[in-house]
């Protein structure tokens, strides 16, 4: 029987033969367009766990380069809520979501993707920021024990989802098993508002939202499985109902709360990148706003301003810029409040600083209703 790898290899050879046979003779043009990546400087980036983001310049101080990334795929059991419900997850680099990559427009992203022997499934990656080959999916399918390196030119500025897409029904299953992340392609001269004035952030947070579909037994309790494969057919049944059992940030209910709440201070500007690889969401910062919001995620479009709640279409990543003006606790939620509170889509910010009485004050404390 032909393995998938052999089938792919065979297809590649066949395509090359056909292409060579049909090539018109054009002395000025090569068979494929290699571009100038070979001549560029290289930079290696070490990715960090969400919600944090690796060090990067907002305004590029040098020219386009090839930025090297390494991600290792890890199939692992994770706990997704405060009751201890388990999920057989598939992850980029061991986290749900996978880490945020940051480059500048016209940089080249060179990703080495590894699928260790300890995994049991083939995986690949589809970059929404890339052009061709199903986002790179056709060129990156790897079995356990294999690795592959893909390079693509980041031609468009914005935040974009990446996710695993191994083909057919495997695609939604891998995605709702946690296998997605995002990349931010900054304009070389940094972010700008609608008037072209410079915008910058003191801190950036990456919040990946995931919808999970965990099967339940006859008593209504969540089931556990020994492997993702064992969970597959039960999970597909729940998926087809289109109603998730969990909608979470950073891979688990409560994972960005308590000791892991994000922190800031009055006067600090944060950029919150929000991705949802599968399902619509509508983020809202309770007590705050989106000063500038790239809702669809692409920086060539002027940002929306003064946003109350913005829309992250399923299959995309957007971002919001906000400068904190009051101290206290802020909840960052998916503003379907059932999903926020019952299904887990809530994160917290702890913000220190002085209270601004002009922006808000309690004129009269609660007391009995006055009678005159």
């Amino acid at each position, binding site marked *: 029987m032909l393995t998938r790898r052999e089938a792919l290899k065979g297809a590649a050879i066949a395509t090359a033969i056909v292409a060579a046979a049909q090539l018109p003779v054009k002395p000025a043009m090569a068979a494929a367009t290699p571009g100038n990546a070979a001549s560029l400087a290289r930079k290696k980036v070490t990715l960090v766990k969400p919600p944090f983001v690796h060090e990067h310049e907002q305004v590029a101080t040098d020219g386009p380069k090839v930025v090297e990334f390494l991600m290792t795929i890890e199939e692992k059991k994770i706990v997704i809520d405060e009751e201890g419900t388990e999920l057989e997850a598939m992850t980029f680099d061991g986290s749900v979501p996978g880490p945020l990559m940051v480059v500048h427009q016209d940089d080249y992203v060179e990703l080495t993707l590894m699928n260790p022997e300890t995994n049991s499934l083939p995986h690949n990656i589809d970059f929404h920021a890339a052009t061709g080959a199903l986002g790179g999916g056709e060129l990156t399918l790897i079995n356990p024990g294999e690795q592959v390196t893909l390079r693509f030119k980041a031609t468009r500025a914005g935040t974009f989802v990446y996710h695993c897409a191994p083909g057919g029904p495997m695609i939604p299953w891998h995605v709702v098993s946690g296998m997605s992340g995002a990349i931010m392609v900054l304009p070389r001269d940094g972010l700008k508002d609608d008037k072209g004035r410079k915008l910058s952030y003191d801190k950036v947070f990456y919040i990946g939202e995931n919808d999970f579909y965990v099967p339940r037994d006859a008593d209504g*309790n969540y089931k556990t499985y020994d492997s993702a494969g064992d969970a597959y057919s039960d999970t597909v049944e729940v998926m087809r109902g289109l109603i998730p059992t969990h909608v979470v940030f950073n891979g688990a209910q409560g994972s960005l709360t*308590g000791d892991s709440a994000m922190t800031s201070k009055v006067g600090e500007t944060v950029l919150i990148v929000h991705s949802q690889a599968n399902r619509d969401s509508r983020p809202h910062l309770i007590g705050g706003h989106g000063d500038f919001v790239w809702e669809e995620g692409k920086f060539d479009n002027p940002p929306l301003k003064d946003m109350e709640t913005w829309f992250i279409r399923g299959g995309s990543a957007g971002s919001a810029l906000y400068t904190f003006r009051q*101290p*206290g*606790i802020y909840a960052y939620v998916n503003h379907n409040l059932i999903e926020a509170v019952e299904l887990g889509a809530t994160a917290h910010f702890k913000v220190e600083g002085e209270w601004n009485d002009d922006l808000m004050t309690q004129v009269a404390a609660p007391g*009995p209703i006055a009678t005159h």
Partner: protein
Amino acid sequence: MSSVTPRLRFKARLVVALSAAALGAAAFVAYEQIATPAQRQIDAPLTVLIDPGSFRHRLPGEYLKDGKPVDAPSQEVRIDGRIEIMKHQVGLADYRRCVADGVCRAADIKHTTAADVPVTGVSHDDATAYAGWLSKATGARWRLPSDREWAFAAGSRFSDDALGIDEDPANPALRWLADYDKQAALAKASDPGLKPAGHFGANEKGVADLAGNVWEWTSSCYERVRINADGTAIGRIENCGVYVVEGQHRTYMTGFLRDPKAGGCSVGTPPDNLGFRLVRENPGLFSRRWVAGLIRNITG
């Protein structure tokens, strides 16, 4: 001083009553009315008798000083009468008898569990219904303890919920941030799996399972008290749709809630489980200890 008294079977009580009459004592029966076997449905639960006393208590409720939230005062509270409180929380097996009698609603238990655990998934309304049923079944008057009674019985197991920070009336966020960190610390101790009665041990007064993983309804309502600069209360509003719940930490829960995850009034860490224990009103003229002593004297 407190004591634990053994259960007495019905016949032993009958003997005692007759003995008391025979001794020419005043013709009141032992503290429980003698019920005929047909009426008697369950043995009265194990209780602990706690002598009156006074203690320092962090009052429940929200306090506003000059209109700004502050920690509730800690006050010397006097408990005048003896308290007779259940040694254990009301058990699932006992609660199910109330359900079988058609008086109580089945507890909202998510996972099947052994029967020798405390009943959980019950609201304040459920606890009150059970107290009424138990009173009829035993011929005594049972009710939820007040917050003060619970704290007095809890002794060293009571948890002070004051934030204890430097107050800044100009910055309300300081209390919100301090409370957030406190709740985060409480959440780390969470261990909701139900354990058999007695698992969390008894305190210095002999009361078991206080501040374990089952929080307990009290009869005390949520209140907001306004105090002036020197601490004198100048106004008070009570909300009896919300009750004080005691356990590892104090919280407030709407009375009809059975699932603690539904949360109380705040974003605070919810209790692992909601259950309750009861106190017996008018701990008797002839306490069980007295009666047991009498039997020993009679039977030698």
